[in-house]
């Protein structure tokens, strides 16, 4: 029974395609998978927007939206209708074709990332050998769409936002990749299903997730920081910076195209949270051995949602960084720390099992963290502020 | 359905076409950045050849062509970074990226 529930979506798919002739079946299976992903994640997006607004409100001692429907849960419906019926404005001087293509490229690239995420046991659309690489390749493609949006709008705020976004995404892509590489080093595979399988066993009742190792914890921390920057979320939301850049690269977008950008941003959050959960938190595996009867997809989605909650929590707490702080943090702290972590991971891989490697690896990482935090990120005294005026 | 004797031939022709397009771009455009784009296209065409030969060659398990393509991609990234750095540096110096105006070495 538990097995049936675990595989319910696979069984449903198989039942649906058995009506078709055998030649069409593989094709239909893929189409069904795509349709499921294209329906589930935007649905989650709609739910997340209302939960985010309510949660942020609670963090600021407000109520949040509560007008549309019971407790305001139909707010996304109202928002959707609004953005669908709004006039789609293209600036007169904008590059119409590029302006039109930018949101499409973004959403397509983000959706592609979901293809390799294992959403549950056997629930992966394409089990690619180089799944992780595929995911990052798709993530890198979103930068082009952001540039297209910013440049084609012919608006200084848009282009500033786009340049900031691209600079930030390039800077943080390096630590994002390097912190994922540690997992690949230990697992010996780029396939996300294999990475989950490698974590899906238990010592006593506790799982062998990578986050519960010194290098894994450090990687997870750096991955989380880089992922936050990669998805342009607070405290790294400079590209959007409402207070300085209006809305950054999508200033000149309205109506449904704006909604597509919004969707793309949240889908990016879902996919990168899903990747983080897959790499470090055991993907769809249960957190305790006695909970393995719960369907695997429930675990994946609850981990994904927990990560989203942390994103929202950070947004409710932290102020925005300045551009130089952002770049300093990326290149002077996160990148050296992930590089060191690579070495520590190699050490972990080749030291014999036992308490010694725990002590050595933890000591190196903790020491480096404290040291680098003290030296690299120390508050600098810049002296009195000097101004330079335009001639 | 095709007039090609072998799938490899089609890939080689596409690669040759891309190479020629890249070369034409590199030779005819005035903007230094577009010349770089042309060079990148030529490199890519060569990569396509390597991959195609690897795929249809006698010993794909030796990975020679594949490896060459991967190294070539890595080197191309470095080449693009240095090339564009040079272009920016020249732009600072000459305030233009127009190659026809960079004729100070002309006797």
């Amino acid at each position, binding site marked *: 029974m538990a097995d049936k529930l675990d595989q319910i979506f696979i069984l449903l798919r198989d039942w649906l395609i058995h009506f078709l002739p055998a030649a069409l079946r593989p094709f239909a299976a893929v189409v069904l998978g795509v349709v499921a992903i294209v329906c589930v994640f935007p649905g989650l997006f709609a739910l997340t927007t209302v939960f985010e607004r309510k949660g942020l409100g609670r963090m600021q001692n407000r109520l949040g939206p509560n007008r549309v429907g019971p407790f305001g849960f139909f707010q996304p419906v109202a928002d959707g209708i609004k953005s669908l019926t709004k006039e789609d404005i293209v600036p007169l001087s904008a590059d119409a074709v*590029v302006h039109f293509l930018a949101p499409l490229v973004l959403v397509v690239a983000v959706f592609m990332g979901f293809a390799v995420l294992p959403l549950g046991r056997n629930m992966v659309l394409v089990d690619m*050998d180089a799944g992780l*690489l*595929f995911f*990052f*390749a798709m993530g*890198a*493609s979103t*930068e082009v769409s952001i540039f297209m949006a910013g*440049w084609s709008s012919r608006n200084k705020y848009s282009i500033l936002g786009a340049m900031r976004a*691209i600079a930030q995404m390039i800077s943080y*892509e390096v630590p994002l990749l390097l912190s994922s590489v540690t997992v690949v080093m230990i697992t010996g595979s780029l396939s996300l299903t294999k990475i989950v399988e490698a974590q899906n066993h238990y010592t006593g009742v506790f799982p062998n997730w990578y986050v519960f190792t010194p290098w894994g914890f450090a990687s997870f921390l750096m991955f989380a920081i880089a992922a936050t920057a990669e998805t342009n979320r607070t405290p790294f939301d400079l590209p959007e910076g409402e207070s300085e850049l209006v809305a950054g690269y999508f200033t000149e977008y309205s109506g449904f195209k704006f909604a597509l950008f919004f969707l793309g941003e949240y889908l990016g959050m879902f996919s990168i949270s899903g990747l983080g959960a897959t790499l470090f938190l055991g993907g769809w595996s249960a957190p305790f051995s006695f909970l393995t009867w719960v369907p695997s997809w429930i675990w994946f989605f609850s981990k994904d949602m927990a990560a989203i909650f942390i994103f929202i929590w950070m947004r409710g707490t932290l102020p925005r960084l300045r551009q130089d702080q952002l770049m300093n943090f990326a290149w002077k702290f996160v990148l050296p720390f992930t590089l060191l972590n690579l070495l520590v991971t190699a050490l972990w891989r080749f030291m014999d099992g036992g308490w010694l490697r725990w002590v050595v690896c933890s000591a190196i990482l903790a020491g480096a963290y404290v040291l680098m935090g003290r030296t690299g990120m120390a508050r600098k005294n810049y002296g009195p502020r000097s101004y330079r005026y335009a001639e | 359905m095709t007039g090609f*004797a072998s*799938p490899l*031939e*089609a890939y080689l*022709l*596409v690669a*040759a*076409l*891309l190479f*020629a*397009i*890249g*070369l*034409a771009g*590199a*030779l*005819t455009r005035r*903007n230094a*950045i577009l010349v770089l*784009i042309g060079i*990148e*296209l030529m490199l890519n065409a060569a*990569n396509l050849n390597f991959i195609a030969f*690897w*795929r*249809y*060659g006698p010993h*794909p*398990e030796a*990975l020679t062509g*594949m*490896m060459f*393509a*991967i190294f070539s*991609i*890595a*080197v*191309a*990234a*470095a080449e*693009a970074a*240095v090339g*564009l750095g040079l272009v*920016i*540096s020249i*732009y600072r110096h000459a305030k233009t990226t*127009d190659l*026809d105006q960079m004729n100070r070495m002309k006797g």
Partner: protein
Amino acid sequence: MSVIFFLVAALTVAGGLAAVLFKNTVHCALAVTVAFAGLALLFLSLDAQFAGFAQVLVYIGAVAILVVFAILLTRGSETPQSGVFSKSWFTGLVIAAGIFAVLGWAVMQSAHALPQQAAAPAVTVHDIGVALVGRYVLPLEIVALLLTAATIGAVIVALHEKERTQ
């Protein structure tokens, strides 16, 4: 040889052509991105997954972005009044056409000698990794050195010369 191959090949060649012919420099950069994506798809159709994804990651994620950055930093996004093609464009075109003719002729001539069909090689990422650190470890190290040198070189070349500007 399938319809998909022709579609992808047409897309790639169209992207390349557009990159060479468009007047606006940013359009050229975006068109060449299309060509890069098409090439990645061609790599995938040749069962070279790793190379295809590396192509997307490096070319679309890094090179294309670098190019547009360079265009914006050099104020190249405006179309110049004096025309986009060099004075010696005709010579360039002739040379390119000649090279294509030679290459095409060579390929056509040797078509009968080319292998007909080959089974898809079963190469996993694991094999590539083993080859990289086994047989190809020296090139790998050299590439690492080259990339480091290129990083430093690019930074030095593009670094603002403070003494001169102030």
